[in-house]
């Protein structure tokens, strides 16, 4: 895992000192609300409905146990005992007093963490495949590239005041677990038989009020050219992205306005201009960064383990949990363990300080000190020996973290919504809770299988509703919370934007509407067919008919 060097350390400490001074100047009245707002946002501090919110960066969703324990400690000492893992692989605290903020940032700095670039119109935390370094299907660990981009983009002088925020995601596997087609820039690392290793470069994906699946503007970019190419894209966007209208300021609007081909042509022209000036620093730097991502000291193990198989036979709850929450690991005798933060009726993404500590302990004891946060608001222990899984399961059960529902109906993404957020128009979490209460742990949920429900409380779409197999968007209709339903979205390599079914539903009606959609799917599916496959085969018609009656 990457460790700060002395330069990072100095930068972070200086930023905290500056922020501490800014807080005291705001409290003494020297800084106005508007002046201070710019400063606090540069340090991840928002003012929400009930209190200040601090968003902490978790670069590419990767944490070590020491960091996780610190997050727990902060939740306990400065917040109200919990934190919220987000769809950007970050964590947010909901109740931190302004006067405590600098101390919280100091506490984070003790474990190489910070809140820089978690807000504002600049390059945000770089996200990546949460199975990085463990996935069977990856060609390499994408995190060194994500770290290279993080270092390049941190306090980048040219790109600190972009037209709008900017999000980059990286994967090195054909199965997309990082939603790369819904980012400002998405990168897929591939080995080409003729051209060698390189990135497919996707630009202008995104959600919000104008959702786009990002188009590919380069099918093969040699890895050594990554930074100059990103620079060319960012320069074009910085110059030509709209600054007159915040709703039209994201790069997706520019790409769409120019057309992907013309946008690509202009990027290539700028890239060709700057490439001769760039040295091989990124390549050397990449080698240095890579040295931090050492492969864990894996044991040579057989593919199966007798005690693991015995526990599976003996304990149905363990077997269900294994079947649902495990993913294959690249090494025999190991597994990738998902820990859904989606207990029945719970708040998606919330974890208590105690739960964070449990995960930290397990990562230390059984997981090669490695923890990941997913954009689906779950946690992952990427390297667990099969033979340790019964003990891990037992500890997770005790901590209330053993829900066997990864990818099922009750594994719902939801934004904080109107329960916390100043931008929201309707609540999201209660809808997730009601759906979870109805489906979690039922035979019906198991029968339905893979189905991703995603809920946003406003059109900014932090809950990724556009990319949900079933998406739910909360709106305010003359003072009443109403919910629009979309179907057929997808966040992975089959990326698609869901289509609105028709008129919305009230808070009770939307739960029944989801049930109707699920009934319709079950009635129409072919053997072994997922919800998404059925929807793509039969189209929206039968679902609309079931929801609204035949017309």
């Amino acid at each position, binding site marked *: 895992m990457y460790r700060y060097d002395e330069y990072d350390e100095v930068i972070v400490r200086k930023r905290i000192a500056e922020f501490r001074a800014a807080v005291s100047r*705001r409290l003494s009245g020297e800084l106005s609300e508007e002046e201070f707002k710019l400063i606090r946002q540069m340090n991840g501090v928002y003012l*929400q409905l009930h209190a200040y919110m601090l968003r902490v960066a978790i670069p590419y969703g990767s944490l070590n146990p020491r960091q996780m324990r610190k997050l727990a400690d902060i939740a306990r000492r400065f917040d109200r005992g919990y934190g919220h893992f987000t769809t950007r692989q970050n964590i947010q605290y909901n109740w931190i007093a302004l006067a405590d903020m600098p101390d919280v940032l100091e506490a984070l700095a003790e474990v190489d963490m910070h809140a820089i670039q978690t807000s504002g119109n600049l390059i945000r935390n770089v996200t990546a495949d949460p199975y990085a370094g463990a996935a069977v299907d990856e060609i390499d660990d994408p995190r060194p590239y994500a770290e290279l981009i993080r270092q390049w983009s941190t306090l980048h002088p040219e790109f600190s005041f972009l037209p709008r925020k900017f999000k980059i995601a990286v994967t090195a596997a054909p199965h997309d677990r990082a939603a790369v087609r819904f980012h400002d820039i998405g990168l897929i690392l591939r080995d080409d038989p003729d051209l060698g290793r390189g990135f497919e470069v996707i630009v202008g994906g995104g959600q919000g009020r104008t959702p786009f699946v990002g188009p590919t503007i380069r099918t093969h970019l040699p890895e050594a050219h990554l930074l100059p190419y990103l620079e060319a894209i960012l320069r074009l966007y910085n110059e030509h992205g709209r600054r007159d209208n915040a709703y039209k300021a994201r790069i997706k609007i520019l790409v769409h306005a120019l057309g992907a081909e013309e946008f690509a042509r202009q990027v290539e022209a700028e890239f060709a201009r700057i490439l001769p000036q760039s040295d091989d620093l990124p390549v050397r730097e990449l080698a240095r960064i890579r040295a931090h991502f050492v492969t864990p000291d894996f044991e040579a193990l057989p593919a199966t383990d007798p005690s693991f198989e015995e526990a599976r036979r003996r304990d149905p709850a363990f077997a269900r949990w294994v079947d649902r929450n495990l993913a294959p690991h690249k090494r025999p005798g190991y597994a990738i363990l998902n820990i859904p933060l989606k207990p029945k009726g719970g*708040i998606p993404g919330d974890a208590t300080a105690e739960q964070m500590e449990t995960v930290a302990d397990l990562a230390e004891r059984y997981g090669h000190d490695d923890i990941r946060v997913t954009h689906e608001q779950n946690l992952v222990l990427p390297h667990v020996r099969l033979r340790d899984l019964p003990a891990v399961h037992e500890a997770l059960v005790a901590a209330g973290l053993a829900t066997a529902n990864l990818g099922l109906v009750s594994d719902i993404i939801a934004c904080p919504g109107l329960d916390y957020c100043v931008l929201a128009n309707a609540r999201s979490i209660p809808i997730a809770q009601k759906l979870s209460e109805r489906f979690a742990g039922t035979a019906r949920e198991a029968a339905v299988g893979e189905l991703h429900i995603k809920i946003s409380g406003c059109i900014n779409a932090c809950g990724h509703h556009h990319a949900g197999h079933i998406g739910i968007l909360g709106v305010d209709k003359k*003072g009443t919370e109403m919910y629009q339903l979309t179907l057929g979205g997808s966040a992975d390599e089959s990326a698609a934007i869901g289509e609105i079914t028709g008129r919305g539903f009230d808070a009770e009606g939307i739960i029944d509407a989801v049930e109707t959609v699920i009934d319709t799917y079950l009635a129409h599916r072919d053997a072994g067919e997922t919800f998404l496959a059925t929807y793509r085969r039969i189209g929206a018609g039968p679902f609309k008919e079931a929801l609204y009656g035949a017309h």
Partner: protein
Amino acid sequence: MSVVNSLRPGPGQIVTANEIMSGRAVWLTADGSWSDDPRAAAFAESAEDAAALLARAQADNAASRVELVALVAAERDTDGRPWPVRNREIIRALGPTVRPDLGKEAAAG
């Protein structure tokens, strides 16, 4: 809790903000102090009264006591005390509906 659903303009307005240190939602009272309870708020029934309340609140904003000052629609409850009209403001008054254990009512014991 009554997080339902009306956008009637309300017969009056109250002034709300977030207290600068904690960020918690507060309401301006008749004596110029800030209360955690909208039922203690000064209730403006005329545009002039509302403007006067807002001006007082903005002075407190300038003096770094509160942030995000806003006039919001309110009505009177059955005891004649002010209560906000919009869902968003009701949730600000009560705390997150999904964590009643952390809400204002809980904090008040």
